[in-house]
């Protein structure tokens, strides 16, 4: 007999779970289907702290948000069918599901498709060799299964996925030999690029992968420079000694079920379903949530999920029209906050942004080299221009991205972002910093440092966010690296602090010669670099 529900949600990732929770809260009988053996989608491999503001769960690591969602789903009575591959969606809102190699049918009065996205690939010579994999695959291997995907990795793609996964590879103890991108500028957030660059990982922009070398597995890679039409420049080939090549060149919606049911797509042959302002597709009662409609961060997916949950609840008659309208408009405001700034959907692909929203000249170097150049750093509002006595924050956050945990982190009001969360954080020049370092630990972009130029006659201290093991012990001597990841001077570890609130971002305080306090941004105990 065919089982019936009020609402069927396909996909138990951040979008699908959020949608199901929101509908269930309003009394809708919901079942979620997911092909995996555990729910959460890709959220459990997101181990970095999320951007946004408090309502977007900023500064919380992705997998912890996943744990919260699962708890909420349980509390609201959302039923999740796992190991359940939805093979078909029919236009009478019936689904066909493969469970334990049996085919079952389910029917609902409303459907929400939250099937997410898949990684894009680029073909090149040798791209099918074992050792070439999606960046997401590498992330799955290391963050879910605790196994390194390789020893020496080339990352292809400098978008947020490429940058974040590169950083996570370093955290797993894997060497990132280089990050390349065919575009002439860094694709992802500058703060994500900076935290990789300062560890010494080289970034080759206007470079493409020519081939993966090897017969049985990857034994190397050849990259080459490209011209402005993305054509390879002969004679610029360079060999890299790697055993793994990760591909991070974007994602595409997995919208096959919608196509099967006859849903109209934005473009006839495209992957993106056309939807109205309440996330309803061209099929009445069939809604979408998350990446299946538009590739974004998980934070946005959770909001679109909630919007769809409410829309479905309204469609089914469980939610009053006015209440639904109000709730949806609140969620849309929240989503709009994430859609502002330099990386907003409308600014996507733009390369002509010369000024920040506040009128500061954008950092050219951050876009073209992946770090803020010494001669640009002083022009931003998070960096004090005059000499500050004693310890104080230096905020190297210079692009309009939607994020404000630094403002909440400082109980002494030294840091101001304001109402619009994409504004650059400004440091009050007459501040009363007590050196607690919470801003350093809670900044999801790891872009805040504490500097004390008055440590002694000859030395200053720099406190930096540190998420690598082992934590260097007090007294360890090593090398301070610049934003560019180059050796700047000798440094000595004074202490390495951590506490629960900092959630695994340690504060590493190093002692450097006074004149290096605005240059030293990373520490390595390794001698040679």
């Amino acid at each position, binding site marked *: 007999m065919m089982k019936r529900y009020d609402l069927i949600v396909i996909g138990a990732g951040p979008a699908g779970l959020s949608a199901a929770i929101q509908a269930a809260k309003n009394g809708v009988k919901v079942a979620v289907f997911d092909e995996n053996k555990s729910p959460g989608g890709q959220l459990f491999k997101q181990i970095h702290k999320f951007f946004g503001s408090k309502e977007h769960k900023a500064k919380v690591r992705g997998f912890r948000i996943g744990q919260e969602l699962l708890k909420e789903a349980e509390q609201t009575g959302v039923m999740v069918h796992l190991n359940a591959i939805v093979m078909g969606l029919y236009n009478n809102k019936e689904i066909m599901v493969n469970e334990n190699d049996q085919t079952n049918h389910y029917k609902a009065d409303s459907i929400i498709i939250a099937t997410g996205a898949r990684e894009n690939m680029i073909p090149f010579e040798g791209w099918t060799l*074992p050792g070439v994999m999606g960046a997401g*695959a590498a992330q799955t291997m290391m963050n879910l299964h*605790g196994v*390194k995907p390789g020893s020496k990795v080339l990352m292809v793609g400098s978008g947020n996925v490429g940058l974040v996964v590169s950083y996570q590879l370093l955290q797993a103890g894997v060497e990132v030999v280089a990050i390349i991108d065919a575009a002439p500028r860094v694709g992802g957030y500058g703060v994500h690029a900076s935290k990789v660059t300062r560890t010494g990982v080289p970034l080759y922009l206007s470079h493409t992968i020519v081939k993966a070398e090897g017969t049985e597995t990857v034994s190397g890679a050849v990259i080459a420079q490209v011209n402005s039409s993305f054509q390879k420049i002969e004679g610029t080939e360079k060999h890299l000694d790697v055993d793994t090549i990760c591909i991070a060149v974007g994602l595409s919606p997995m919208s096959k079920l919608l196509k099967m049911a006859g849903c109209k797509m934005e473009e006839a042959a495209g992957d993106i379903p056309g939807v109205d302002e309440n996330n309803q597709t061209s099929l009445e009662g069939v809604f979408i949530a998350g990446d299946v409609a538009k590739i974004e961060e998980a934070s946005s997916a959770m909001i679109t999920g909630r919007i769809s949950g409410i829309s479905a609840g309204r469609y089914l008659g469980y939610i009053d029209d006015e209440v639904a309208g109000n709730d949806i408009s609140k969620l849309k405001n929240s989503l709009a906050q994430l859609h502002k700034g330099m990386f907003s959907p409308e600014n996507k692909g733009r390369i002509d942004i010369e000024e920040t929203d506040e009128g500061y000249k954008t950092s050219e170097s951050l876009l073209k080299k992946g770090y803020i150049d010494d001669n640009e750093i002083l022009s931003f509002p998070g960096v004090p221009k005059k000499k500050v006595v004693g310890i104080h924050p230096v905020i190297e956050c210079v692009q309009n991205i939607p994020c404000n945990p630094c403002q909440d982190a400082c109980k002494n009001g030294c840091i101001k972002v304001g109402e619009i969360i994409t504004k650059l954080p400004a440091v009050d020049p007459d501040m009363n910093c007590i050196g607690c370092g919470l801003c350093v630990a809670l900044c999801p972009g790891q872009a805040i440092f504490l500097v004390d130029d008055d440590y002694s006659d000859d030395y200053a201290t720099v406190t930096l966010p540190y998420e690598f093991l082992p934590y260097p012990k007090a007294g360890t001597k090593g090398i301070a690296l610049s934003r560019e990841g180059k050796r700047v001077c000798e440094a000595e570890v004074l202490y390495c602090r951590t506490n629960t609130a900092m959630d695994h971002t340690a504060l590493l305080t190093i002692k450097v010669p006074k004149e290096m306090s605005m240059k030293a941004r990373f520490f390595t105990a390794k001698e040679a670099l």
Partner: protein
Amino acid sequence: MRIDKHPVLEEFEKGEVVEFTFDGKNMFGYEGEPIVAALQASGVKVHRHTTKTGEPRGVFCAIGRCTDCVMVVNGKPNVRTCVTPLEKGMQIETQYGIGTKE
């Protein structure tokens, strides 16, 4: 290839250590982890060879989508090793085309 201690995740929850065979050789992995994790940890990267040209293939998407990592498991071909949990005594074999080597 295992990550002993992780700066954010600390330790990975794993099942019991179990023995399995890869192409007849004894190996160890953790019960319940995907087969691919146990193989990767033991340095095995080639999962299969393609039907027509015999080219090697390994893990590619790691989430059960691409089917590049399929192997012969307990005599059954085309098993997606990235989403199939390891069990004690499993016989895992490199896949050649759509079966084992003749």
